[in-house]
């Protein structure tokens, strides 16, 4: 069994000086164990926060059957890195103009974090973040994917993400007509 301790975990541990354990152990679908700071987990994941508050955290490893070890490792890595990063104004400013992407831009370290991931790892991470209710991680990963989609035609998107075109020509034309407004040239 492998226990993955994030870099920031030690400092985090000292910060959260509590009587009981200040980390939680998470168990991936393939049985690997990961430790993550309780504070970061509760702050970043609504699901883990609920489990911690509800006392359904298992000291021997809380089963997360939906998440593979690679994705969980990334999740834990993200939590630790996030704990180390300077907390920013997380709230999305309301001044975002209408036509810009409705995310708060990822910070530099978040960008680097997702940039090194493969397609598959990225999607696994989206799934994991979705499952764990990690809104910020979802934002960051989805933003990365949407950047990969930016400016691409449906054809190119199919190619990049290896999606099969199961439409007939007529169907495509029909949709194109129905959605004519979306295809105006800007």
């Amino acid at each position, binding site marked *: 069994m492998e226990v993955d301790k994030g870099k920031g975990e030690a400092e985090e541990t000292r910060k959260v000086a509590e009587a009981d354990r200040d980390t939680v152990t998470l168990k991936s679908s393939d049985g690997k164990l990961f430790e993550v700071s309780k504070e970061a987990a509760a702050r970043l994941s609504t699901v883990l926060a609920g489990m911690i508050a509800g006392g359904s955290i298992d000291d021997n490893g809380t089963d997360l059957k939906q998440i593979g070890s690679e994705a969980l490792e990334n999740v834990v890595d993200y939590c630790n890195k996030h704990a180390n990063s300077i907390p920013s104004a997380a709230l999305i400013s309301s001044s975002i103009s209408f036509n810009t992407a409705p995310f708060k831009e990822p910070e530099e370290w978040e960008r680097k974090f997702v940039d090194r991931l493969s397609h598959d790892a990225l999607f696994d991470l989206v799934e994991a973040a979705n499952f764990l209710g990690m809104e910020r991680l979802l934002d960051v990963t989805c933003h990365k994917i949407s950047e990969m989609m930016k400016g691409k035609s449906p054809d190119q998107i199919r190619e990049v993400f290896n999606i099969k075109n*199961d439409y007939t020509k007529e169907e495509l034309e029909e949709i194109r007509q129905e*959605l004519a407004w979306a*295809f105006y040239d800007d």
Partner: protein
Amino acid sequence: MSKAHVPGYSAATREHKLARLFCFVCDGGVPVATRCEVLVLLLDPSAHWRPSVQRLRIQGEGGRLPQRASPLAMAWSEVLRRLPARSIARLNLVCRDWHALISTDRFLRSHAVHAELNGASAIMFADCNYIGHATIGFPWIRVRLLPALPCGATQAYATTYATLLARRRVRVRHGHEQAQARLPLLQPQEPRDTGVQAGVRLVQNIRDGAWCLVDPPPPGPVANVPPVDIDGKLFWTVDMMPSSDHQDRQTPATRSWPWIHTCDFDVLKGPPGSCDGRLVSVLRLRGALGAAVHARQGFNTLEMWAMRGYGDGSWCMEYSVDLGKHSPEYSRHTTVPLKKKTLTSFDQCMYEHTRKVLTSLQWELRCI
């Protein structure tokens, strides 16, 4: 693409089609998505926008959760819901799965919630099950309808009223209005015996972009008389006989809306002749509220009235335009002067009687 293809708007009839408006219904504090139908106001560059009041039909509870989707579909759903509506609409072309995903109520809801949270967009139109039109119409309006549907209600829909008026032009094709206003969250009202639970009665304050909630709502404007904005007040005409049989009867009164400071509105008496359906338009005339009124039977003239003061509601006739003199085709039955930005007043185009102005006059005078 030509303007005629602007969806929802027919250049031929100058009608605005029904589009579905995606909105929220608050059920016990949890906003659930629903759909309602509302007449959408679009601005075709060639046309004048017009307000409309339309019953919204809220269909069921909306926002039903689909059967369990695959984790990958969920992941894509997460990615797509963060994209602008227009991009999403284009992505319908990628594959059937995406098309199906985008068409679900759940997706529409989550997209709207996300857009709402992020202050990104606006009215979400779910037209033909497609998300979209967020760049059309009132991109900066965010409507949240919160009629508290009575628990266990067997009625499939509740009705409510929407009065949406805007004074700002919307660029239809590009639709990148930078300004946006947050609509106040409408609190669910006490259930009334009529079943009408709540309404959207919002008017935009042009100065700070805020939306005001008005209770009770003012009567809706007459559809084919465009409103006019004079010094921060919006004037429109109302039908004082709101009988459904006489929807297109002209209006006897003008309402003014002091936009800036209050949300009150007054009914002003129209000029003589407006009460028997001869009022054809309200317009800005020498900086004041003006009205065009058909002359009495037998005269091919348009009378241009200007209001003396808002206090006493007195009117005086400024011009009497003999339409037949300018062109035989302008008969009093088919002519209505419309406000046009480039012309500061109606008399300008009458006096500068060049060919060019005649062309613009032609623009000004439209057939009813």
